[in-house]
């Protein structure tokens, strides 16, 4: 009989997870500088979690998950961050698994879920296209039926970790409806080893290659790889984003940035400078109050409620605060802000430029902050269009 982790006390749950991370995550993988390590770089941690049965926190137990509710899942994510666990390629765990569990056929579940847990299949997510970013519904990658297969042509972009993935789930256009552009989109599972799939990594501002372009050139995909109904992919894809939306607004990144700012400020004696102290106080209080705001939404989940559209506010505030803290750190760096490399502070280092550049991204991904504001204007403030 598997442990019912939801029934375990929060403290015991934390301790169990902490022990596991100590056991299966080697020190060099803790608090990694790299935001998105490849599968091979973190495989030992991935497999360690899988063997202990802790890899898929929200999947039902029958599928090899822990069956955690939102309350315990939030602790899981929080502890992961606190313990400095590296980000693992998690599209399989976080998106494909839930997608198949809700909408997949028995065959799809039986084939894919165990291979996600074993790490045999590493997934990436093909949503954005060169001309379909914020306006995702205008996507043009086409899948045309040909007998028992679909033939896919087109291009995806900003596909995170595609260069170390071997499967991709893509949104493709299967028909056109001039009135409702969201209709006619289908979710397709594609083996990236199929002929006609080509991946080109894109270097980002931090000099890393987290994301890629993925080209599809007459790629034949068996029709049984459609998830859910044909032409209903928009609804299918949207349905898997539940309480996880709160994590986009978690204060984790600004907390890390604040720790770096404080470290550099101590090394530079900046806390004795009233002008700095004033700017620091503003940022410090923004972070403190973000914690209070996050707690309000987290409490809704803990008490069994559902998140409203208003949770977008956390995403906007946390990503913009992350930017402002890293900007202050660069300002404090003085002429050291010319360095791409980390700044030495005595025996320690501060990755001021690394975080400043990293902070450009979260305000864009996961729905740009401008899109978030549009959503809030409509769904929360009910402003007219």
């Amino acid at each position, binding site marked *: 009989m598997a442990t019912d982790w939801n029934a375990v006390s929060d403290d015991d749950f934390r301790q169990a997870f902490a022990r596991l991370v100590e056991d299966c995550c080697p020190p060099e993988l803790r608090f990694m500088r790299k935001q998105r390590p490849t599968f091979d770089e973190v495989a030992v941690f991935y497999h360690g979690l899988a063997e202990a049965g802790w890899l898929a926190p929200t999947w039902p137990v029958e599928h090899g998950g822990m069956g955690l509710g939102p309350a315990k899942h939030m602790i899981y994510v929080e502890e992961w961050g606190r313990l400095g666990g590296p980000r693992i390629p998690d599209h399989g765990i976080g998106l494909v698994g839930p997608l198949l569990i809700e909408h997949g056929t028995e065959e799809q579940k039986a084939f894919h879920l165990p291979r996600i847990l074993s790490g045999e299949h590493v997934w990436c997510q093909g949503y954005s296209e060169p001309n379909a970013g914020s306006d995702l519904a205008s996507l043009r990658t086409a899948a045309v039926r040909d007998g028992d297969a679909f033939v896919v042509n087109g291009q995806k972009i900003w596909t995170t970790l595609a260069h170390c993935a071997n499967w991709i789930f893509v949104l493709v256009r299967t028909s056109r409806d001039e009135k409702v552009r969201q209709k006619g989109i289908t979710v397709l599972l594609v083996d990236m080893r199929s002929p006609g799939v080509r991946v080109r990594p894109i270097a980002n501002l931090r000099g890393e290659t987290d994301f890629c372009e993925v080209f599809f050139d007459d790629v034949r995909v068996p029709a049984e790889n459609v998830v859910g109904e044909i032409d209903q992919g928009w609804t299918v894809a949207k349905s898997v984003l539940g309480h996880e939306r709160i994590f986009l607004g978690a204060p984790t990144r600004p907390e890390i940035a604040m720790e770096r700012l404080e470290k550099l400020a101590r090394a530079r004696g900046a*806390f004795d400078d009233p002008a700095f102290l004033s700017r620091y106080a503003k940022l410090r209080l923004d972070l403190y109050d973000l914690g209070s705001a996050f707690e309000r939404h987290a409490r809704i989940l803990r008490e069994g409620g559902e998140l409203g559209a*208003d949770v977008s506010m956390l995403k906007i505030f946390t990503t913009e605060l992350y930017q402002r803290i890293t900007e202050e750190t660069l300002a404090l760096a003085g002429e050291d802000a010319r360095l791409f490399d980390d700044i030495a502070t005595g025996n320690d280092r501060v990755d001021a430029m690394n975080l400043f550049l990293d902070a450009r991204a979260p305000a864009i991904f996961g729905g740009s902050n401008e899109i978030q504001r549009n959503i809030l204007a409509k769904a929360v403030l009910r*402003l007219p269009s």
Partner: protein
Amino acid sequence: MPQLHFDDGDGTLEMLRDSVAALAAHHPGAASLRARREAGADMDRELWGAMAEAGWTGLMLSEALGGSGLGPREQAVLSEALGRALICEPVAGSAVFLSTLFNGAPDNAEGARLASGLADGSLIVARAWRNGTVQARADGDGFTLSGAVAHVDQAQGATDFLVMGQCEGGPAFFSVPAGISGLGLDLQRSVDGALLGTLRLDGCHVPATGLVIGPDICAPLLERAVAATRLALAAELAGIAAQALQATIDYTTTRIQFGKPIASFQAIQHRLVDMWSDAELAFAAVNNAVEEAEAGEGRAAALAILAAKARAGDAAVSICRRAVHLHGAMGFTDECDIGLFLKRAISLNAMLGQPEELRLAFVNLERAA
């Protein structure tokens, strides 16, 4: 829309909100403010009486002293509602401040008299303790007070003053009846349509029984009263912010230009969303401070209250400023209520520490550990 979220098991909070709404129906906040301003008065005695009758002036005062003995949660909900309704009689600066002092003061007849008068509305006890200094010299049968204190609310309408004087042993609070010999008052207009007094004491004699809070307990008690007042001010400011936002949403969705409501334009929508988001943060900060205050009086509560007053003050002033702008030329008229919200927000934000000062106090307290 933004508001405080608390468990309301026995319905007290809902009752408080309803009671503010009911009173505001008879004494609309903006109209009362204008009438008071027009009359050149520092308070609306009738409104204050109605508020006392509703139990708001003694909400936090202990039951032994004639109050309701309620806590930060109930006070925050009341203050939030007063902010929304723009009811400007000084509940935070008067009732909350005084109740906290009286609750902690040792048994004494004069303190009990003032407390009872505060709760039933029969006395107006003006507070003179912050902007200025008063020396209290012990004489034969009491004390002689000399000095001046500025920015005293309800100074003109006061029946009594609670004055902080510096004794040999430190600060102490004295009860000084209005109209005694040696007492003088200068008045200035406040931005929110009232009067602020500068109280001058020129050798005022107070009997020994007028020492309400002695120097032995004055400092920690004052700290507690300031914290409670800041929390109530924060809740009131959050209420002001929420109402100013709502008024601006209502205005921009009905104001038609270029054939459409101006709230349909993205430039306006994003501004409104940012205002809403600032208000949400303010309410989250106040919620957090109330919970910390209920959990105890330690450092965590002190930090949370500093944060809440800073956040709510900033939010209220900046939301009202943007609200005035989004009302266009109408917003610049005295006839439009939105300007009154801005002025009230500025005034409350300036009380007991502006945001910058509070933020610095926060980081100093945090870094002292």
